[in-house]
């Protein structure tokens, strides 16, 4: 990896804006998430305080929006803006334009937040905001994406291929998916049930062809750099990449069970999900040897530990999605809380951990700053990990019980709601843990940006291990 040059740092302010936005939106989303679940757990609260904009119907889609577009998308773009000029050695031009685009992305999130809070969601899957907000996202993405593609194209032959391939896939899938969804869903071009097909397609694009490839870029680029080992078979990696890009857009169809979706599309979704499980297994075989015998380093280095958990969460998330696509399971769990379990696994475990690892590994390189060996690092890891585990497992169990009860016509709906209550208590605890972890991260993130800590190092290490390891991402430290 190349040493940063002053010209490379042109993109630093845009990356900084995106990352500050990402951390702030995550914090806000986590707080609102707790408020939403509290209302679901104690429905009487909405009778005591009937205010529309803090009601569950507004908060639930808002939280999902903040996490997807505000926290993860903004964060990944920020981390990539630091990473790409460094691996390509090609500085970004038009730094101010990139900064404007980063600000525009934050305005788009803010606009979406205001809209959903005051006017409510549009009801469209993964597209809960108006067309004007979509346009802001689109323009911002075109500028940021063009900047990233330029660095990518010129440095194609230098460095590992797989992260470049995933980045290319993600950068093309996002505008294609969003553009098509906008045209067909809001341009009155798609009649009736086609709108629902399009919603599922966009939902799949957003998660499996945009966020997952970006997370894999960071894993394929940074995990070998942090462990000092090269990823194994390139042909297996390329095969998994082809499968991910080809099948990722079909996964959402397996969420539907009968209803408006033609049955062949649902079957195609199931087959695609099962085949994608094989691709994920291929990537797992590539990542696993990188971490073998690295237990001590994972214990010491913050970034490596987050990446390790992120990688295993990648496997767990897609194994869970594959399990849910199995015909008998799908019939039982459609329209239940297993959907939230999938979201929790993807957002909080997979994307969230990879993003945190990326920030810990790359931010010092761009801001000439360091991380203190502070207990908040451990709080961040343990609280977010425990929170995500509680969330995913409670939602998964709740969903399975809900599905079994829904399929028993003798069980009234009010009884099913009471079945869910104990699980919702665990969900609430998980969300509180995750929020505390995120608070710990925010405190250390902002304090480090403001250079408030007297003693810092470019490599984040947990407090129990104050000896700073040599770090392949920071040659100056050798």
């Amino acid at each position, binding site marked *: 990896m190349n040493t940063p040059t002053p010209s490379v740092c042109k993109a630093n302010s845009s990356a900084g804006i995106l990352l500050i936005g990402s951390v702030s939106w995550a914090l806000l989303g986590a707080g609102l998430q707790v408020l939403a679940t509290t209302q679901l757990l104690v429905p009487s609260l909405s009778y005591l305080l009937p205010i529309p904009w803090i009601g569950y119907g507004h908060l639930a889609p808002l939280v999902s929006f903040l996490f997807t577009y505000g926290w993860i998308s903004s964060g990944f773009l920020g981390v990539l803006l630091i990473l790409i000029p460094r691996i390509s050695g090609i500085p970004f031009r038009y730094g101010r334009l990139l900064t404007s685009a980063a600000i525009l992305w934050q305005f788009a999130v803010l606009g979406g937040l205001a809209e959903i809070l005051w006017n409510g969601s549009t009801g469209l899957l993964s597209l809960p905001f108006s067309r004007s907000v979509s346009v802001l996202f689109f323009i911002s993405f075109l500028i940021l994406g063009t900047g990233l593609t330029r660095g990518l194209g010129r440095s194609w032959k230098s460095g590992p291929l797989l992260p*470049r391939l995933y980045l290319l896939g993600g950068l093309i899938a996002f505008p294609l998916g969003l553009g098509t969804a906008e045209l067909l869903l809001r341009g009155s071009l798609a009649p009736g049930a086609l709108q629902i097909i399009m919603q599922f397609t966009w939902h799949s694009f957003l998660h499996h062809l945009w966020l997952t490839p970006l997370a894999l870029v960071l894993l394929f680029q940074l995990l070998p750099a942090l462990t000092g080992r090269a990823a194994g078979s390139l042909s297996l990696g390329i095969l998994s990449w082809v499968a991910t890009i080809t099948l990722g857009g079909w996964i959402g169809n397996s969420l539907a069970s009968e209803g408006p979706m033609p049955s062949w599309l649902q079957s195609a979704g199931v087959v695609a999900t099962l085949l994608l499980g094989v691709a994920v297994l291929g990537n797992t075989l590539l990542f696993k040897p990188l971490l073998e015998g690295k237990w001590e380093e994972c214990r010491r280095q913050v970034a490596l530990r987050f990446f390790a958990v992120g990688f295993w969460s990648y496997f767990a998330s897609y194994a869970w999605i594959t399990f849910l696509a199995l015909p008998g399971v799908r019939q039982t769990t459609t329209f239940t809380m297993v959907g939230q379990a999938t979201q929790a696994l993807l957002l909080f475990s997979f994307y969230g951990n990879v993003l945190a690892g990326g920030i810990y590994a790359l931010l010092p390189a761009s801001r000439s700053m360091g991380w203190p060996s502070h207990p908040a690092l451990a709080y961040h890891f343990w609280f977010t990990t425990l929170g995500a585990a509680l969330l995913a497992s409670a939602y998964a169990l709740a969903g399975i019980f809900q599905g079994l009860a829904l399929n028993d016509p003798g069980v009234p709906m009010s009884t099913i709601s009471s079945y869910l209550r104990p699980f919702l208590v665990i969900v609430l605890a998980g969300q509180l843990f995750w929020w505390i972890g995120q608070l710990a991260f925010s405190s250390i993130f902002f304090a480090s940006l403001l250079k408030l800590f007297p003693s810092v190092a470019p490599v984040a290490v947990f407090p129990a291990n104050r000896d700073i390891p040599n770090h392949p991402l920071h040659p100056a430290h050798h």
Partner: protein
Amino acid sequence: MKSTQALVLVFLALLFTWAGQVALGFFQVGRLEPILNEETNYPAPPTPSGLAQTGARVFASQGCLECHSLSVRGPSGSADLTRGWGPRRTVPRDYLFREPALIGLSRIGSDLSNAGLRIPESKDLLMHLYNPRQRNPNSTCPPHPWLFDSSLAGPSIENEALPVPTRNWKQLLPSYEAKALVAYLQSLRTDYALPEAPLK
């Protein structure tokens, strides 16, 4: 692998997804047409009123989809029909005139594909929106009092005023949004036969 090769591969892969779902989807469900019932001379599915279409947007904006689905499954592997959520399973043609077409992914509350059949009276639906616990004390559905306007009652209470106790000679009248939402809920019914989903 060259960058151009990778670019072509990505385009082909995404084109496969796009063409498979959007284009083939269009040819299969995008060109569906209503069926004319020769006995009644009405089309099926029926065209919803403009008020009901506005109501669909109110339905979405109030977040009803966070707890309610709009899709009844068939008898194999699901109890939707046994629960009385509809006279038959829903099929793509049922969504023909729905704008926006919504489905929902959660069933904390019951499915609403046939809300118009199950609660036909608009007064009952309005009461449910104002206070769901009036009809069902165990309801987890939140109240929507902001969909109602409080105004001074004249010499007599208006017909559409809610039968709830009020103070200071006031009456509770449904707002335009409440009326639209009720019109939408009443339009949700699949009590017509389709060739692919006959009534039993």
